[in-house]
């Protein structure tokens, strides 16, 4: 019994301590962000590894998600003779939910895990301490550019995902299943609002980008500097990011679309 209580207390205390370290880390990153603009080369390098390298997986997934939505939507809607509304079904589900959430999950798996592993290995091989010895602030030099790159890439990737998905739905719905081209676009434009749907979707993806970058960099920075520790930290990044994305998505959806 005492043993159980002791473990409970230990878990609680250590998770609070981690939360505190995480928040402090975030403040450090945010205050270092401005200095990144003095060295845009660092940011471009990270935009390449975080954004450009995620480009392919995001576009291909977007295309297939859109195509599947077009196919499934068509089967169900044609039961009610409402195939013409396929456009709004595909676009609304992509722009509001699937675009931001699925691209964030993919981004966490593709870029977040890589960030954690990279930072974790830097810590394990004492590169970060080495930098400090040379009076280079690793937060400014290593962490902040990666954070900004994730923060910038995420909305762009999510917009790409949604757009390609809509085109994929168009390809299947209009090209293969014979939905009218005009009504596909017209229903979509009539049903979706720029402010309520598009902007809210973009806000979601910005929030997710922030959360993923924070979690993956913190897990890397906070890792136990052994190979096992790095592997655990990488796993935690993917798992925690997924939980955070889905939880935040629920909260944001309830706040944004609650009154409909």
């Amino acid at each position, binding site marked *: 019994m005492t043993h159980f209580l002791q473990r409970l207390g230990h878990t609680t205390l250590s998770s609070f301590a981690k939360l505190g370290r995480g928040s402090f880390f975030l403040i450090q990153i945010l205050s270092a962000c401005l200095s990144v603009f003095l060295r845009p080369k660092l940011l471009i390098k990270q935009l390449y590894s975080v954004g450009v390298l995620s480009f392919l997986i995001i576009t291909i997934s977007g295309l297939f998600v859109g195509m599947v939505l077009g196919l499934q939507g068509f089967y169900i809607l044609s039961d009610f003779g409402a195939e013409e509304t396929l456009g709004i079904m595909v676009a609304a589900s992509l722009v509001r939910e699937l675009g931001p959430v699925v691209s964030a999950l993919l981004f966490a798996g593709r870029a977040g895990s890589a960030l954690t592993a990279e930072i974790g290995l830097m810590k394990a091989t004492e590169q970060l301490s080495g930098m400090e010895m040379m009076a280079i602030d690793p937060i400014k030099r290593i962490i902040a550019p990666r954070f900004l790159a994730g923060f910038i890439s995420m909305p762009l990737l999510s917009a*790409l995902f*949604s757009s390609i998905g809509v085109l994929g739905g168009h390809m299947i719905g209009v090209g293969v299943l014979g939905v009218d081209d005009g009504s596909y676009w017209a229903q979509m434009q009539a049903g979706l609002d720029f402010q309520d*749907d598009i902007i809210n979707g973009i806000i979601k993806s910005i929030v997710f980008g922030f959360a993923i970058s924070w979690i993956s960099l913190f897990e890397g920075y906070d890792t136990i500097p052994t190979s096992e520790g790095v592997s655990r930290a990488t796993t935690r990044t993917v798992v925690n990011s997924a939980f955070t994305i889905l939880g935040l998505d629920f909260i944001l959806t309830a706040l944004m679309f609650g009154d409909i």
Partner: protein
Amino acid sequence: MQNTKTQDTLVGLFVACGIAALFFMAMQISNLSAFSNNKTYTITANFENSGGLKVKSPVSVAGVRIGRVSNISINKDSYESVVEMLIEAQYNLPDDTSASIFTAGLLGEQYISLEPGGSEDFMQQGGMIDITQSAIVLEEVIGQFLFDKAAEE
């Protein structure tokens, strides 16, 4: 440093693609192109029953969309539904225009159809439509029909 140059180009391409996608979403997927910076004016109409009319439902004349519903509230004295509409400023409506609530298709969304009258004067900002026809509630129509059938026999 050939490598850096390629990297720069690819990053530029990526950002350009992302911005193009955002632009595509704004213009092609949503209705931003339809009602962006156009000036509008507000008119109101009282309906006995506004049925399934919603904020943002279309307002049309002769089937052409000229505005949208901006607010629906209830008049506390007469218990009528007060519908505010935003009409694009380029369309002038005679002040004896009448308004009806129709349904697009059998199960489609409801919209306001305006029928311009013959008056020489135009509606101003805050104008009021006097002649209105309420939404047709399907249950009432069916009920009426059954009642008439029963009375005939």
